[in-house]
């Protein structure tokens, strides 16, 4: 009987130690990241090349690390769109790329080419909308995107020309470098003024953005 108590006590102690150390570690990482956001205006959260939207009256930067071929990014996109739509005056939304899939770079090039025509968001919309078709796991067909993109209202001739000349390598490399510095491995990952989004729910994103706006 005495032995059992010792065993259970030791198990509890180990678990408790784990939770305490984990919490402590997480807090120190969070503080370090927030400090980065306070001390640096730009990197690792924003770079000059990054697509960014919003008037940013309240100096609230929402950074999303995204991958056009990532299903979770596509699934969560309506949420970030809604939140940003409500607060586009107060905040700034910045997209960073983590090209983790085989055709991510292809899609990023299309996005960047479309950005030259000021059709970035429309294009992102189409890319996500038709993701189940062009980015099937067993049979990806990125070329299909060309047939969907006219729906974004793009000048297709110009898009094709820009697609040929545009070079996104440096951009992707810098975005990757910043992601590594922040410890971002997956997409989507959101930061609001350096504070990471922990739960991927609409409420959590609203709460985080509003806590920064009304602080």
């Amino acid at each position, binding site marked *: 009987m005495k032995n*059992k108590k010792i065993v259970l006590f*030791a198990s509890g102690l180990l678990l408790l130690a784990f939770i305490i150390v984990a919490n402590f570690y997480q807090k120190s990482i969070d503080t370090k990241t927030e400090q980065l956001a306070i001390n640096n205006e730009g990197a690792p959260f924003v770079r000059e090349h990054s697509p960014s939207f919003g008037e940013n009256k309240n100096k609230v930067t929402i950074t999303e690390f995204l991958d056009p071929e990532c299903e979770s990014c596509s699934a969560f996109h309506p949420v970030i769109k809604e939140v940003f739509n409500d607060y586009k005056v107060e905040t700034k939304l910045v997209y960073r790329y983590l090209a983790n899939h085989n055709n991510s770079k292809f899609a990023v090039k299309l996005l960047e080419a479309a950005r030259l025509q000021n059709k970035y968001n429309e294009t992102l919309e189409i890319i996500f909308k038709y993701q189940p078709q062009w980015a099937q796991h067993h049979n990806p067909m990125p070329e299909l995107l060309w047939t969907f993109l006219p729906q974004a209202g793009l000048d297709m001739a110009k898009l094709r020309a820009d697609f040929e000349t545009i070079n996104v390598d440096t951009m992707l490399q810098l975005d990757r470098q910043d992601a590594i510095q922040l410890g971002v491995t997956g997409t989507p990952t959101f930061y609001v003024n350096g504070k990471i989004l922990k739960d991927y729910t609409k409420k959590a994103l609203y709460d985080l953005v509003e806590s920064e706006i009304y602080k």
Partner: protein
Amino acid sequence: MELKKTISTGVIFLCFLIASIATLGSLFFSEIMNFIPCSMCWYQRIFMYPLVLIFLVNLLYPDDKVFKYAITLVTVGLLFSIYHNLLMFDIIPESIVPCVSGVPCSTEYINWFGFITIPFLSFIAYFMIFILLVSQKGK
């Protein structure tokens, strides 16, 4: 007879602690520090995690059969960890193991004092449990 039993309970308890620390430690690396486990690491986890429960159940409801269950898992895990350490120390070239999870198994996430890596910690844990169990069997 009585004496032997008390010793082995102590040893099983020690084994339980080692397995628990190894389990929680590996979870800390992957879940809290976000290190992505390579495939070799997964195999070692597969054989380490159940040990915690095997030892725990034996401690709560003692019998003398724990050796044969535990040693099976420990031996397989130990072989994986030896192999993994040979990879880390460049004794076996990486190309022999195709790592499907995208992380090469020779990636060094931590390196304390020049030789303590995660696979090394795993090896130490398996080795200690192995020696403890075998030392009991010899009695």
